[in-house]
């Protein structure tokens, strides 16, 4: 293959290819289609994947939700059916005893209450929180700030409001720095926030007023109870590892029977996420399988056609040999032709696949089409590079047998006059 880049050889090959267009076209078709299918399928698969992952948004995925529920087993003199609420104090104990635990964001809700600013008012959910919920739920702080540590420590009468609340109560007015009233208590607005994605299921975030948990406890007499908390694992730790420890600590703390399947409830989002990841891993594997299969069929097709071509070109090869072509030059000629045809047709297939996927993506975005479970189909550049390498190797493989066949052509037989 010394002369792979010789200009002359390429000219010789171009001449042969361009003067046998139909033959070249037929050879190219299989690979073109194979690589097109591969790129197209994987792009669509990516769209499906993006569509599903989009619902997760930027929110943390290494988290679990923890809440309390009614016990089902008697324990230490307590009867079954007891309800043991979680408390703010539990957080410190959990942090101390569960080393995998990174952040805890608790939340207590006291339901909807009239929220008043001047003459404007509306019924909104009142939430008591600490500082970390925006990190976990991927909230955008659209102005001002969220609850901070001093707010919590000093139980300040401050609040952060959802975009809808701001809209209704403040309209054109600046919300941050203004005041509002909840159940007769005056709060200063320090920030406005919205969920990372505005969806049906995040509407409640838009319609909430968040105050420090400590303030809630003092102002509305909720004790230091919390409804649920979101626990994030430290990087490198699995939530599945952390979950049983949290349950154990809490059960111990609340005197719940260790074998009680109820009492402390939990939902492992990471596991859910991993299941979806696993599913897509499977889907992707399948798409690769189908795509590669199509491609392989294309390659076998090329090889077959090249074989036929070599048969058809027996006379030509015989002539070339009689004129002084070495077996290597014949092998090199057939291989280069094969690689060239596969590479070009594959490249065209890839281009078309990318173009269609890109066009689809563009149409979806520019027309604001939001489909369930399908979003932004993409062609991964890695796929392109891999495919190109596969193509060259494929071309070599496809050409190999025909090339060897060609090099063995016996000029005496090939040139026999009938």
């Amino acid at each position: 293959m010394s002369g792979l880049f010789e200009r002359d050889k390429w000219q010789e090959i171009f001449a042969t290819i361009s003067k046998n267009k139909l033959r070249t076209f037929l050879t190219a078709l299989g690979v073109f289609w194979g690589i097109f299918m591969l790129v197209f399928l994987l792009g669509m698969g990516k769209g499906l994947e993006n569509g599903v992952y989009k619902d997760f948004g930027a929110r943390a995925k290494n988290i679990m939700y923890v809440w309390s529920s009614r016990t089902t087993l008697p324990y230490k003199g307590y009867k079954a059916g007891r309800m043991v609420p979680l408390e703010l104090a539990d957080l410190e104990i959990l942090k101390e005893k569960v080393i995998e635990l990174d952040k805890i964001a608790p939340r207590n809700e006291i339901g909807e209450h009239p929220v008043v600013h001047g003459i404007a008012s509306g019924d909104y959910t009142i939430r008591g929180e600490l500082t970390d919920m925006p990190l976990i739920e991927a909230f955008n702080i659209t102005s001002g700030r969220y609850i901070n540590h001093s707010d919590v420590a000093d139980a300040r009468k401050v609040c952060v409001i959802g975009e809808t609340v701001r809209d209704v109560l403040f309209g054109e007015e600046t919300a941050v720095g203004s005041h509002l009233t909840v159940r007769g208590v005056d709060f200063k607005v320090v920030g406005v926030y919205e969920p990372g994605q505005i969806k049906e299921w995040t509407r409640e975030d838009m319609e909430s007023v968040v105050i420090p948990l400590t303030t809630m406890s003092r102002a509305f007499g909720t004790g230091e109870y919390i409804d649920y908390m979101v626990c994030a694992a430290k990087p490198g730790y699995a939530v599945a590892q952390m979950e049983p420890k949290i349950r154990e600590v809490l059960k111990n703390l609340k005197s719940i029977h260790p074998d009680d399947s109820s009492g402390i409830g939990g939902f492992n989002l990471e596991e859910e996420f991993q299941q979806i990841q696993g599913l897509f891993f499977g889907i992707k594997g399948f798409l690769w399988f189908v795509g590669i299969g199509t491609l392989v069929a294309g390659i076998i097709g090329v090889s077959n056609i090249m074989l036929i071509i070599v048969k058809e070109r027996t006379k030509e090869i015989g002539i070339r040999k009689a004129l002084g072509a070495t077996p290597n030059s014949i092998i090199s000629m057939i291989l280069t032709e094969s690689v060239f045809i596969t590479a070009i047709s594959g490249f065209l297939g890839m281009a078309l696949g990318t173009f269609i996927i890109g066009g689809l993506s563009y149409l979806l975005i520019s027309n604001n089409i939001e489909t369930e479970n399908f979003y932004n189909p993409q062609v991964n550049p890695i796929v392109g590079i891999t495919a190109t390498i596969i193509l060259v190797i494929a071309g070599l493989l496809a050409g190999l047998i025909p090339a060897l066949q060609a090099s063995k052509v016996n000029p005496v037989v090939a040139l026999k006059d009938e």
Partner: protein
Amino acid sequence: MIRLKNINKSYTMGANKLHVLKGLDINIDEGAFVSIMGSSGSGKSTLLNILGILDDYDEGEYWLGDQLIDKSLSEKQAAFFRNQHIGFVFQSFNLLNFKTAQENVALPLYYQKVPRKERAARALEYLDMVGLADWAGHYPNQMSGGQQQRVAISRALISNPQVILADEPTGALDSKTSHEVMEIFKKVNGQGITTIIVTHEDDIAELTNQVIRLKDGQIEN
């Protein structure tokens, strides 16, 4: 120039063995103009293919100049000899249909790695020698048999070989064209190139200086 000593060649087809050349001893001097005659199946083409190193022989010795041509010659070396020292002309011309006359003539130089421009120029020169300079851009199927054969002869000559081997070069041509083609061979031979022509026709053989007659794989007379 060419020395054959006791050349034997058989073809095996299944269980049958066909002894085609039975101990040929032939000497051909440099610059000779030779015709090989004999009935169909007498082994003329077989002999010519051995001379052209397209085929090998079973027994004996074949010297081309001072080079012994035998099985120890690699395919690559054989290709080199064919390319540098031997020019072929066939009954059915064997031009590449998808190449123009000029490109066909230039092809042997491609395998000598002569630059493209020079190839084209020399091909035109050799076409001119056979009176076909104006036909350089034509494809074989746009030419008459006689013209095609003249293109083929130019192609055989372009690498400046020591020997021209022609297997029934006039077999597909009418007698007038045949004689035109023979004129060219005569001119070629006049330049000192050893010319060996296989033919069936006596009037063609008469135009050469020496006739070798084959009968049943042996030399007659």
